[in-house]
């Protein structure tokens, strides 16, 4: 299946779905070292739901971090 994380495409062989926790390991080396929040296809997903929320073919994950703002 194919997914996008922050606009970058990832091809994941024959898997039908993976958890957000697993998907984040594609993006980060050490997710626990970073401050971030996640949206799946434009909907917020809380940290407590990362293990049980599945990312499927064609899905898009946004991983956001705090930055300066006005």
């Amino acid at each position, binding site marked *: 299946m194919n997914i996008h994380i922050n606009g970058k495409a990832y091809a994941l062989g024959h898997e039908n779905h993976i958890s957000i926790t697993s998907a984040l390991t594609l993006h980060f080396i050490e997710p626990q070292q*970073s401050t971030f929040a996640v*949206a799946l296809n434009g909907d917020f997903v809380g940290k407590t739901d990362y293990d049980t929320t599945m990312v499927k073919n064609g899905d898009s994950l946004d991983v*956001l971090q705090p930055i*300066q703002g006005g």
Partner: protein
Amino acid sequence: MSLNIYGQKLESRLLIGSALYPSPQVMKEAILASGSQVVTLSLKRQNPAEKSGQQIWRYLQEIVKQTDGHLLPNTAGCKTAKEAVTLAHMSREICQTDWIKLEVIGDDYNLQPDPIELLYAAEQLIKDGFKVLPYCTDDLVVCQRLYDLGCQVIMPWASPIGTGKGLMNPYNLETIRFRLPDATLILDAGIGKPSDACLAMEMGYDGVLLNSAVALADNPVLMAKAFGQALQAGEQGYVAGIMEQRQTAHPSTPTLDTPFWHQN
């Protein structure tokens, strides 16, 4: 006298942004110099190769700790209510605050808020338990509708973001103050000079939110102090009671026994 944001009393009436400074260190020094206890921030896509994100987050946390202050995440960049609601939830998880500076932009040219999407987003976020601080135009009816929805704080613009043009429509802003006497009104965006902030406070506004005017100054730290003092001056002037304007001159020096006086 203190600024009331959803029941939270703050000594400083200045809310300040964390963007556009020459460096994170200057940002920190300027914010501390301003005396502000509310610092805005935003969210963007995380880049694992970029270390600066965590550094900024640490700086912001240090500032909040030193000022006994609050983070105010914004929804900058959102163009629909749905985007803003999603970003607000993400911000709440990261910043651990129900406060959200709600921005929904309707036009890329002047970054003018979209009043319709703004109202939809505010309504949903209030249902979701947020304390919404909406950034809006100086339209009385939009401000009234936001207040009626439950926004205790309303933040009309002075002029478009980053222009430094100051108060474009003083009449509109004065009317909003007059018609919403119980709302916490914070003038947001377009402030250029300390005198702009002072003028807003003289109108009876409760506070001012700004960023570019400090961050883009030649000396951001000194400008931050200047804004802090300007807000205090404007607030004290408002509380003291400003004299009525008069159409004709009135001598301030007593006229009795004026020297060299003679009958004309």
